[in-house]
């Protein structure tokens, strides 16, 4: 076996993020009235240690072994997700969903977190095996199926947040494999139509721009026609779908657009999170001293809204440090992807980078109401065992890919 050349900047960055995260989980537990979060930090430390061990173990395996095991892992994950729909359990706010693996009454974890890694591996295998990147819609059916099956199973739980991550991973890996940007835009267009359909003139402008793109890009005739029809269909469908949404679902969407229409209930979390972050100012109220956190104004402060605690107690300074660490981590992953010496490893590294980026931007954006509340955790920060395992598992993979890869390359940012 080859000696592993450890990518120290990456590992140290992940380590710093984990320490930062544990400190924030500890702070989130320091409230005037004790909550479930009070002792979460001790468990979190155990999870971090376990996760680092896992990362080390994974880094001992070869990239070839990962490629070989992608299919069995993928199949096993899909079966697990399928079984979850029947036997899964809920937790906390989402008690009715079925995202938890429960055996004999013990909640073992959320398989969706590991499924993200499985899908990345499988998608990398599928895309990496091609000589050329897909150039038409028809050629995309296999990658679409690879992502589609677990995505569907997860959306049925339902876990909207993880579903968004899957879509992010899908597009990012298509991009990295060389699928032209116009084609990516065309694929995404029906979803955009669905959203824009609520404003007729906006939708009209989008439709014309799309038409121009189709004429310029010149895909197959049938593809172009199908896409345009799909966009028209979505535009027509959207208002009907809206009508069929349950009132509470509609309400949620409206509250996302303007939390102040319901400051006491649905909008409460976002408003209080913004107040917490905003009142932090430049340097924050001091570690452990966040009043919004301490007096229970913050929701889910040790899991989904932990970044609001960072903002309140450590201010813009703490936010900048955390975001810089995340940026460094993702850029380092992109560097690993571009330095990898085979397409599978390169795609895995990029897929993992995309997964982190979606997690960070959606979670952090949510605390400022830039993103809807979907329940996506923040890597290395949010309290939770399976997610911490998945994060360090990704680090382990990244270490291995980087170790097998080449040295610096021209044309990337100097990090």
């Amino acid at each position: 076996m080859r000696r592993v050349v450890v990518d120290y900047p990456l590992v140290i960055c992940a380590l710093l993020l984990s320490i930062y995260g544990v400190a924030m989980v500890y702070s989130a537990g320091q409230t005037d009235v004790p909550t479930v979060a009070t002792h979460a930090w001790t468990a979190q430390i155990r999870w971090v240690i376990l996760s680092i061990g896992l990362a080390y173990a994974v880094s001992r395996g070869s990239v070839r072994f990962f490629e070989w095991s992608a299919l069995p892992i993928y199949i096993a994950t899909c079966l697990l997700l399928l079984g979850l729909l029947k036997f899964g359990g809920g937790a906390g706010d989402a008690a009715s969903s079925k995202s938890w693996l429960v055996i004999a009454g013990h909640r073992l974890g959320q398989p969706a977190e590991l499924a993200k890694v499985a899908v990345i591996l499988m998608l990398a295998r599928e895309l990496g095996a091609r000589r050329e990147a897909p150039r038409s819609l028809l050629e995309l059916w296999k990658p679409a199926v690879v992502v589609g099956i677990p995505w569907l199973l997860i959306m049925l739980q339902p876990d909207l947040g993880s579903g968004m991550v899957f879509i992010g991973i899908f597009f990012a890996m298509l991009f990295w494999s060389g699928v032209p940007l116009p084609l990516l835009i065309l694929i995404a267009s029906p979803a955009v139509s669905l959203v824009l359909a609520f404003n007729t003139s906006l939708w009209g402008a989008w439709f014309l721009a799309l038409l121009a793109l189709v004429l310029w890009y010149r895909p197959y005739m049938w593809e172009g026609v199908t896409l345009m029809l799909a966009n028209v269909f979505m535009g027509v469908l959207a208002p009907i779908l809206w009508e069929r949404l349950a009132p509470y679902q509609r309400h949620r969407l409206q509250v996302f657009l303007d939390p102040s229409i319901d400051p006491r209930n649905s909008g409460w979390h976002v408003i209080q999170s913004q107040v917490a972050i905003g009142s932090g100012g430049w340097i924050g109220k001091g570690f452990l001293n966040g009043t919004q956190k301490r007096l229970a104004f913050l929701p889910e402060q040790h899991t989904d809204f932990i970044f609001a605690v960072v903002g309140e107690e450590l201010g813009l300074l703490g936010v900048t440090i955390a975001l810089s660490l995340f940026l460094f981590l993702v850029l380092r992953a992109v560097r690993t992807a571009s330095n990898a010496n085979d397409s599978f490893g390169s795609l895995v590294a990029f897929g993992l980078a995309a997964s982190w980026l979606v997690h960070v931007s959606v979670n952090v954006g949510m605390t400022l109401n830039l993103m809807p509340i979907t329940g996506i955790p923040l890597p290395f920060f949010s309290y939770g065992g399976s997610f911490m395992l998945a994060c360090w598992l990704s680090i382990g993979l990244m270490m291995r890919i980087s170790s097998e890869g080449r040295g610096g390359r021209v044309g990337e940012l100097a990090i």
Partner: protein
Amino acid sequence: MSFHPNEIARRARIASWALVGIFALLLSAFFKTQVVNYAKYSQQSETNRLREVPLPAPRGIIYDRNNQVIAENVPGYTVSILASSADSLRAALTRLSAIIPLPNEQIDLAVRRYQRARNRPTAILSDASFDVVSVLEERRIDFPGLIIQSAPKRYYPDGAAVASFVGYVGEVTESELTMPRYQGYKTGQQVGKNGLEREYESRLRGREGVRYVEVDALGRVVREAGARDEVPAQAANPLYTNIDLPLQRFTAQIFGDSLQGGAIAIDPKTGGVLALYSAPSYNPNSFIGGIPPELWKSLNSDTRRPLFNKVTQGRYPPGSTWKLATAAIALERGLVTLDEHMPTPCTGGYQFGNRYFHCWDPKGHGSLTLAGAIEKSCDVYFYQLGLKIGLSTLVGGGIRLGARDKTGIDLPDESRPTFPYADAVNYYNRKYGPRGWSQAVLLNLSIGQGENSQTVVNMARFYTALATDGSAAKPEIVKDKPERAQILQLTTEQLAGLRAALAGVITHGTAGSAAIQGVVLAGKTGTAQNAQDPLHNHAWFVGFAPAGDPKIVVAVMLEFGGHGTRAARIASKIIESYLKVVPTTFINTEG
């Protein structure tokens, strides 16, 4: 995948710049929230966690002229509750009502208060007994928003004896809060409701302080102290009055439970009110912390009208006490001298036109000088004097004496006396029709009957002019710069003559002994016809002592008191108590 190194490098570049862009966007959003909008969110986070608990300011202490306490503050307790919603407040109060008596109306009231000021603690009990407080302290853990606070509580050591002028305080009502006078007041605050407490509210109020308690998202009080520096309450400055507390007590005592009426004692030189009492009185302490509804009802339905100030609000025909006004008006205009006789001597009545006007004494007084007529209170003399003065002059003179004006005493809701206005002919034409009246009204007016109703305080004011140099002192309870108005244009000799005549009313035949043993009391009785009940006249006495150099003017009016002598006896005792000497006995004259 297309894995050419140049391709990969290009994509890595795109990806890296996209990443930097996304993170820059996120960071700028944080910058906007944390730096640009810092003030807004910081304030919102403070409002989230801090609740203002008002610290009531001690009201100004009210002292008498010798710095004895009339109104003070004693330690009390208020109970209030912080709630996050009207429903949770109602629920908490319902649970509270199992422990302490809390009727449903009070719960409804509390909910209304809460809706007025959601971030302030809602007052539940403004004067909780020690027992209630200790029970609540024990169960405090069950009521997370409960705030028990010691608060100064108003106390009047002399109770009912001082209520007539000091008034009382109570919680500002919902309708009062809408008045401009109570701008800046908040629900739950104490406010003067009557008497000096109301008149000097702005001076007695003090400045409310505030302390901050920290609450969590569920409205539970997490920290009572130290959440933020408190602003201490500022006590108001004391109020120094002219009241002579022993004299006030004595006056209250002498009226007792049975007499009904009012009395005022004024220092004629300064206008300082030495005592002011309206009988029956009420206990102002029972209003503190909310008067029990039954008591409030009985005070309002009592036919003796304890809440009605008979000194400043009651209006009564002045009767013979007015004869001094008639005399003064005539003297001022040189229509009569103190030694002048009237053409018709008194034979027990006076024929005017086709009507016969009786004198109070059917035996008659014979031919009298003005001084003698004042001494004997001879109606027949004053009928003729009135005719000599004439209606317009008599009415105009009366108005100049202040018969249509409030005295301006520093008490709320003083009544304006009733008296014809300057165009007297027009006044009577309007009142009775041009043919409905004759000069006979002039006869009535000149002896203090007819269209003339005066407050007790206004008669006292008029007599301060007689007791001094002809200038009337504005009656003032609170020590202030004295104000006087020259209402009588009489020479020193004329004034001295009138005072001598008033002394003669009382000292007739015994003046020599009085000069040695005590003090010469001067004054005039009056028996005013009561329109409602002819059998029960109002008894008046207005006078001063010592006659030579008056130190005190006293006006006493007894509702349905019968003859003026009864009022005179009370006045004499008040003066005796004040001057600490026995006034000379007086003989009964009419009026």
